[in-house]
């Protein structure tokens, strides 16, 4: 690797102060530190040795945790395609179909958002933060497979500028960047991200009787009272058993259908200590709690849905594991994490059941709690201050 180092060292003066491209220093720095951990040493005073962790390693851990979801999502896109169009496809063909659909979306999200990051880093002269490694992967995973690529690009750019850079950049944002991208599309181009968009047809036409509706859409439909059929039976009629939904053999956004894959991701995140298990557990707990309360009230079929079904339908698991745990937008105090997660779970189920316009509640629930996270923290920090003050008067 010496020759690579030599090349970089030769280029470096061009980008340093006084060099030809000094404005682009942080672009150079980004690739330099990506290839080589820098040779900086501890300052004269302060700690003389440092922990082996850095932000790059932390972020790559999250990306790795998302890989099972991505891999399953790629296959599932092809699988849903084969069912919907009535083709008998080999598993390899399904994967290839999935790759053709998903890879461009991933690529566009990374390039579009990454460019914005780079431009801001150059303008503001600060290093490029690694957070976008994660955001750029999250955005494709919450998109329907039929999403037009230009919308992916637009949403990524919008989200990075409005949700992150406008607030001061990495570490300062209030809202989860990937969810902002999705929410933007949801309200700006509703026809492309709701309704019959969850299955990729390509140039084929769907077979007769194909509905393409997600379990959530079916559930929401029952609340309008148009269907008398019990929801459970309807779910099963639609071909979705609890097991199917758990495994993720259902239409939906690219990466979120499989609860199992999300849980594998959760296992990685919790075992490595990168994400807060308190948030993940409390989101699931909150959803179960609210589902259980609705069971007791039992106004309609959707309300009577056994609470554990809420865990497997829609994007609850994906949101709980990858979105709610974003350390920047979640609560930052340990006690706050319990409250924050629990309320996300509760609000998700409330939105699912009572809001016919938005079948899925996790996105709005997390964005809503993102806004409230600082308030929760504020109260917990204040309690700490008060304890200290109380001591003084004694």
């Amino acid at each position, binding site marked *: 690797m010496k020759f690579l180092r030599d090349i970089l060292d030769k280029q470096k003066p061009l980008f340093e102060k006084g060099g030809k491209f000094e404005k682009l220093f942080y672009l150079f720095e980004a690739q330099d530190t990506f290839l080589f951990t820098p040779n*900086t040493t501890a300052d004269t005073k*302060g700690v003389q040795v440092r922990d*082996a962790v850095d*932000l790059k390693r932390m972020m790559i851990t999250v990306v790795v945790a998302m890989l099972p979801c991505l891999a399953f999502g790629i296959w599932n896109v092809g699988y849903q395609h084969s069912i919907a169009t009535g083709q008998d496809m080999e598993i390899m063909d399904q994967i290839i179909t999935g790759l053709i659909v998903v890879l461009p979306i991933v690529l566009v999200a990374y390039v579009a958002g990454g460019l914005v990051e780079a431009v801001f880093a150059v303008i503001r002269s600060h290093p490029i933060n690694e957070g976008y490694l994660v955001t750029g992967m999250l955005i494709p995973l919450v998109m329907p497979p039929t999403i037009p690529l230009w919308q992916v690009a637009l949403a990524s750019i919008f989200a990075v500028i409005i949700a992150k850079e406008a607030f001061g950049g990495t570490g300062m944002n209030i809202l989860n960047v990937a969810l902002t991208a999705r929410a933007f599309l949801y309200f700006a181009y509703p026809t492309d991200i709701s309704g019959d968009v969850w299955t990729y047809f390509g140039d084929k036409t769907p077979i007769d009787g194909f509905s393409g509706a997600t379990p959530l859409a079916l559930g929401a439909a029952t609340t309008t009272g148009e269907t008398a059929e019990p929801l459970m039976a309807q779910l099963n009629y639609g071909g979705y058993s609890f097991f199917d939904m758990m495994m993720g053999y259902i239409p939906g956004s690219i990466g979120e259908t499989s609860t199992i894959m999300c849980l594998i991701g959760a296992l990685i995140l919790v075992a490595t200590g990168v994400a807060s298990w308190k948030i993940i557990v409390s989101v699931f707990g909150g959803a179960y709690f609210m589902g259980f309360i609705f069971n007791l009230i039992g106004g309609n079929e959707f309300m009577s849905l056994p609470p554990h079904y809420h865990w497997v339908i829609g994007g609850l698991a994906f949101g709980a594991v990858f979105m709610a745990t974003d350390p920047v937008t979640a609560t930052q105090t340990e006690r706050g994490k319990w409250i924050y997660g629990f309320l996300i779970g509760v609000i998700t189920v409330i939105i699912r059941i009572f809001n016919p316009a938005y079948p899925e509640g996790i996105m709005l629930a997390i964005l809503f709690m993102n806004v409230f996270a600082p308030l929760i923290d504020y109260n917990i920090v204040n309690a700490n201050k008060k304890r200290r003050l109380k001591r003084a008067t004694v």
Partner: protein
Amino acid sequence: MSQTIKLKKGFTINLAGKAEKKIADCPQPETFAVKPTDFPAISRPKLLVAEGDNVKAGTPLFFDKVHPEVMYVAPVSGEVAAVIRGEKRKVLEIRILADKEIKSESFKAYSVSDLGNESKENVQEIMLKSGVWPNIVQRPFGIVADPTDTPKSIFISTFDSHPLAPDYDFIFEGQEQNFQAGLDVLSKFTSGQVHVNLNIDAEVSPIFSHVRDVEINKFGGKHPAGNVGVQIHHLDPVCKGDIAWTVNPFGVAQIGKLFLEGKYDASKVVALTGSEVTNPQYYKTFTGASVNKMTDSNLKSEHVRFISGNVLTGERISQDGYLGFYDHQVTVIPEGDYFEFVGWMKPTMKKLSYHRALGLMSFMNGAKKEYTLDSNTRGEPRAFVQTGVFENVTPMDILPTYLIKAILAEDYDDMESLGLLEVIEEDLALCEFVDVSKHEIQAIVRKGINLLRTA
């Protein structure tokens, strides 16, 4: 009332190069130095000696114009060889070329019973003049105590939990009487208690466990259980308006000896530690010793970093640099100024990490594994992202992230209400070690302290 407190949070860094419990046979270094920069509150040091002057151990070298009664004295007798100045003529070092035989300034010697009856004013005068006073460090702020204050209590931690820390039982061996006399003197100054805090996890030598007329508490757990700041937090926290004093056992024994024998004795036993030392062991020398004699032909490699103190709170010094005033330890570790190809995702068991992010497998080594760490920062500074980790290595009811952000925002009210009065740099040193975003936490803490102190 004595208390026994077991701390759960924290992180012990187990490094290679522990000092063997024996005193090395080594000639004394030629030069010694006093560094005004070791005392963070000194703003305007006034020199009392010039190059070429002859001094004895205990002869005043300088004082701070803000507290002219507190003398900072020479550790050894000899000739003032050089006064090293930095920018704006700031005094950095006063170097003394030591005599072969150390001569000391003499003060009045007391018997134990006379000492008990002596008034606080008289002992204080001797302490200020003789140079033992700077051993007394005040909380809040971690600065040399103001002689006009009356502390609500005085705290002495009798163990050091830092990486490769010297064994206090060993380095203070045979100082029972001095230590007890020092405690007797200190108890004259406080209206409250003198707390002597012992280590629960080790067998404690009678020097510390058999002391009289003080409060004995026991602490256990991972580092920073030995930090006196953490102990104060659990025994009798410093609130707004409170003053507490802390003294290292070395200072207690030095004060005791001053009164029992009537001389200022700066001799101390220091540990030479670290993975790059061939024979890590203890050395008998004096405060401010040059480290060159002990490290000469005692190193495994060339490209190393010399640290006065430990790897968490120490200060880098040059190969012939000098021991800091409060330090009992010299650490030598490899210098880490190398590039590492994709070092940020390489799996490793050799690099220590509190985290378990992908590829960081040091947690599988078990607690007994000794690490060789170098000075590489292992990444670049970034924005605050991760949460919850600082809290896990800070065994106090303090929210470090919020405190640090309050300091960065220069929010005086928040700094105070979030607990800056209760900590000094060393108490949050572990946060700096584990920080994913590589902030200089200790420098930030000192900045905050200086803001509050001068507000």
